């Protein structure tokens, strides 16, 4: 009789050769449920890792986006000319001291550069503004009638000064909202009132719309705007400009516009071919990319910190899986004895690790979103949760589950059933 059944046995062996993956998932789930505390501790590393990746990226992306947005509120086609800071006799001179920009440079650019839509001289000064018994330290900025267009200021009420008032250096001004708030009682209309800036009386003809803080944290509403002629003649008492500000015809034409400006300025300043520029041209786009790269660097930094925490979480999974292989040696021995194959054990442990990291990942995503929103609400930081960040951290933690689950699982699957059953 020995040998007679061998056909049947072979058939049987082939038939049961493939262990149902669904059954393995069931086995893994019940193993996780059986060890709730340990499973939770295993997940904790991943939960914290994913949550920190998501919230750090949200904070990083958020500040990145808000910096870019703020810079663009200052006007994306803005071009700026400043006097070059250069050394004379070995002494480095500050910008304020180099007196190279004059009103006629602005006029020359207006006449000769067709890629420029608007040009304005810019002069500023600081001082004390007084109305009645209130006084407030602030800054006066000035330009021509195109200045508000170039620097993206809106007039909320009243009007901007006209060319007649510029020509006559009229003592008129517009106030930023912060100045209004600090000088006037509620309900008092500032328009038509007279304020004194450094003892010089200015008639208020308009109020500027609120702009908020700029990228550098400066309050853009803490200003007084006046004709540049008035400021040059009565406040700074200089014929030199702090800067010339311009708008290119479009964002795409900024580079050609700056080239035109450079040519025009060299002619206007009568520079020889061998002379260096005595001015500097800055575009808003340069500023944006400088700031963009700084905040991207910060993003990378935050990202790497949180990636490290994810890896630490992964090592936590490996650690606990590894310990649990030792702790569950008898269980593994039993499973092998009742017919589990090495591969089934490998899969069970791997599925356990993956399930733990995926569930931990989902909880982590939820916690990360919650934490980001809390930061936004409490600290007032801008946040931005991108689907990329969620996807990235999620894939990363599944990968970590497989990667760090593999080794202990492999170890479990190679156990000798007799040895394993004897394990105390």
């Amino acid at each position: 009789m020995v040998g007679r059944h061998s056909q049947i046995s072979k058939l049987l062996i082939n038939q049961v050769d493939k262990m149902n993956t669904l059954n393995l998932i069931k086995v893994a789930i019940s193993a996780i449920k059986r060890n709730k505390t340990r499973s939770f501790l295993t997940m904790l590393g991943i939960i914290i890792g994913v949550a920190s990746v998501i919230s750090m990226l949200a904070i990083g992306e958020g500040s990145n986006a808000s910096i870019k947005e703020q810079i663009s509120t200052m006007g994306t086609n803005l071009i700026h000319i400043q006097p070059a800071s250069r050394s004379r006799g070995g002494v480095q001179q500050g910008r304020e001291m180099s007196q190279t920009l004059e009103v006629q440079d602005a006029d020359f650019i207006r006449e000769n550069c067709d890629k420029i839509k608007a040009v304005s001289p810019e002069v500023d000064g600081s001082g004390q503004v007084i109305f009645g018994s209130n006084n407030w330290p602030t800054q006066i900025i000035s330009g021509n009638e195109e200045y508000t267009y170039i620097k993206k200021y809106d007039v909320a009420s009243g009007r901007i000064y006209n060319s007649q008032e510029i020509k006559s250096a009229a003592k008129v001004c517009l106030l930023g909202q912060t100045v209004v708030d600090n000088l006037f009682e509620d309900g008092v209309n500032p328009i038509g009132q007279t304020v004194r800036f450094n003892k010089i009386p200015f008639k208020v003809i308009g109020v500027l719309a609120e702009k908020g803080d700029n990228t550098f944290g400066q309050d853009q509403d803490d200003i007084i705007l006046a004709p540049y002629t008035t400021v040059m003649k009565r406040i700074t008492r200089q014929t030199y400009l702090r800067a010339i500000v311009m708008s290119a015809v479009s964002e795409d034409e900024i580079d050609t516009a700056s080239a035109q400006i450079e040519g025009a300025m060299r002619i206007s300043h009568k520079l020889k071919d061998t002379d260096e520029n005595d001015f500097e041209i800055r575009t808003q786009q340069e500023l944006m990319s400088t700031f963009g790269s700084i905040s991207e660097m910060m993003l990378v930094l935050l990202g790497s910190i949180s990636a490290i925490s994810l890896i630490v979480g992964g090592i936590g999974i490996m650690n606990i899986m590894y310990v649990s292989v030792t702790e569950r040696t008898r269980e593994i021995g039993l499973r092998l004895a009742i017919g589990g194959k090495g591969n089934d054990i490998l899969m069970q442990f791997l599925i356990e690790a993956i399930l733990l990291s995926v569930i931990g990942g989902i909880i982590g995503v939820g916690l990360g979103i919650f934490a980001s929103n809390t930061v936004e609400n409490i600290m007032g930081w801008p946040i931005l949760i991108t689907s990329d960040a969620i996807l990235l951290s999620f894939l990363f933690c599944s990968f970590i589950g497989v990667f760090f689950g593999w080794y202990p699982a492999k170890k479990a699957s190679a156990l000798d059933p007799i040895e394993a059953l004897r394990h105390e």
Partner: protein
Amino acid sequence: MKSNSIIELKSLSKNYAVGTETVKALRDVNLIIEAGEFIAIMGASGSGKSTLLNILGCLDKPTGGEYWLDGTNVNSLKRNQLANIRNTKIGFVFQSYNLLPRTTALENVELPLLYNSGVSNKLRREKAENALEAVGLADRMKHLSNQMSGGQQQRVAIARSLVNDPVIILADEATGNLDTKTSFEIMSLFQELNQNGITIGFVTHEPDIAAFTKRNIVFRDGRLIKDNGVKNISSAQIALEQLKEEENLQEKLELAYAG
């Protein structure tokens, strides 16, 4: 060779290498086990009982000789094929039960069938329930294994060994952790199962326990030195009743002394 033999060992040997020495755990063992037998495997500690049982259960491979199980020559099988044999033809009962903790009796019994994709969910549940009924735990199916007594746990383990309709149930000192009364209960269960046609191989130290089986084989230093049929097989059920009577008597006596 009789036509209903399910296990046949031909001059089987097993050596273990321990350092530079070789331990001969089994030497030239010849044995035939037929369907329906109930064998006690006996011998002193270290005589090779567990080694034999592990080989019979396809957990280990012999060093020499042949092992035929239900028509298959086990010597030639690979690790995974051995796992399949264990899954479909062998039922194990261990001294320390080896149940999954915090898991219901039913789920514990279902476990072997989970590793057999040929068994549907419904069939698995059904077979596990039947096995638990057969060991007298129909009313304990949803109980957690770690909330049961030793005897109950061993019953669950026996149900688990039954659930895949094995060719043979192999038990290594299955009563070793139990008190006398519970041991007798388990033996009574084994006798009942055997009467229903299940083949059982049972390792034990104790002659009392061996007396409940039909055939005793004895090992010494890895050799099979004795192979007897049991002449007057005791009934575990009767032994159990006697034990209970004695206990009652003892109690009455104690009461009498106290009174």
